[in-house]
């Protein structure tokens, strides 16, 4: 890991380049969210506020599924907390790599931490020190992109239609597969990925979403701990 502090402009440029594929992939998803919110009777202002303040696509789509007038507060709260519970693990993993940042910088970074920028930050931290410019800049760019395209969807959604029909939803999957490959090193990582995917698929089929997310994550984490034990014993 290098201790050199690169210029802010360079870090922001790196952040933009790294997050660019996710920005492109997020655009049609944001438009879809805005369109669905419009169809559920939310005003554009309410849609923009939800995207800006919550900034959690999975939880927002689940909320739209649940949405009624008046909104079911408890169901929305529980659904949001469950779907976003993975952020606890993500933050716990990333925070030691941000220990050199100021508390306010870490806090701001956490408020815009999403799967995509978190994974890219983890990848960056594996090779060199994370900077505030890179981490916060990437989060801010990704947040602004989500708010922008949600707004577009809220205003124009009914005429845009479902982006899944041209495969836009698969863009995120391809990004995540690429990141898993980059973050998984050694034979043990294969076991972690297989355990996570298998348990997640099983729980999704038997119990349903969002329980598969944490179940799969804990399965992978458990296998990592077990395999570590086995390696030491031999």
């Amino acid at each position, binding site marked *: 890991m290098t201790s050199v502090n690169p210029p802010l402009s360079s870090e922001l440029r790196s952040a933009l380049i790294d997050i660019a594929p996710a920005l492109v992939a997020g655009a049609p998803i944001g438009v879809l969210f805005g369109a669905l919110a419009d169809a559920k009777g939310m005003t554009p202002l309410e849609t923009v506020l939800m995207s800006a303040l*919550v900034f959690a696509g999975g939880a927002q789509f689940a909320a739209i599924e649940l949405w009624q007038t*008046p909104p079911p507060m408890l169901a929305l709260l529980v659904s949001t907390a469950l779907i976003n519970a*993975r952020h606890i*693990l993500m*933050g716990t993993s990333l925070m030691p790599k941000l220990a050199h940042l100021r508390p306010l910088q870490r806090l701001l970074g956490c408020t815009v931490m999403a799967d995509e920028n978190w994974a890219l930050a983890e990848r960056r931290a594996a090779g060199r020190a994370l900077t505030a410019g890179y981490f916060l800049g990437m989060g801010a760019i990704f947040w602004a992109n989500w708010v922008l395209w949600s707004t577009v969807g809220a205003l124009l959604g009914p005429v845009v239609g479902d982006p899944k029909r041209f495969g836009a939803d698969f863009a995120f999957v391809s990004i995540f597969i690429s990141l898993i490959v980059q973050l998984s090193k050694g034979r043990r990582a294969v076991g972690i*990925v297989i355990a996570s995917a298998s348990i997640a698929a099983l729980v999704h089929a038997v119990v349903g979403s969002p329980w598969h997310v944490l179940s799969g994550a804990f399965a*992978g984490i458990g296998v*990592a701990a077990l395999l570590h034990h086995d390696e030491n014993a031999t």
Partner: protein
Amino acid sequence: MNLDHITLLAILLMALATLLTRTAGLLLVGRFRPTGRGKAAFDAIPPAILTQSSPPRF
């Protein structure tokens, strides 16, 4: 552009729940320093989480 007060309250509740999950790592991380098997489990968090990641989930 209208903003219903009950809708705003629902959005704020969702935002609060999300913020708590996002900042929990800040509170938890200084409290333990994993080693050995615990560290192996800790290091497995990125691939274990990413394996479940499917669109759209921010």
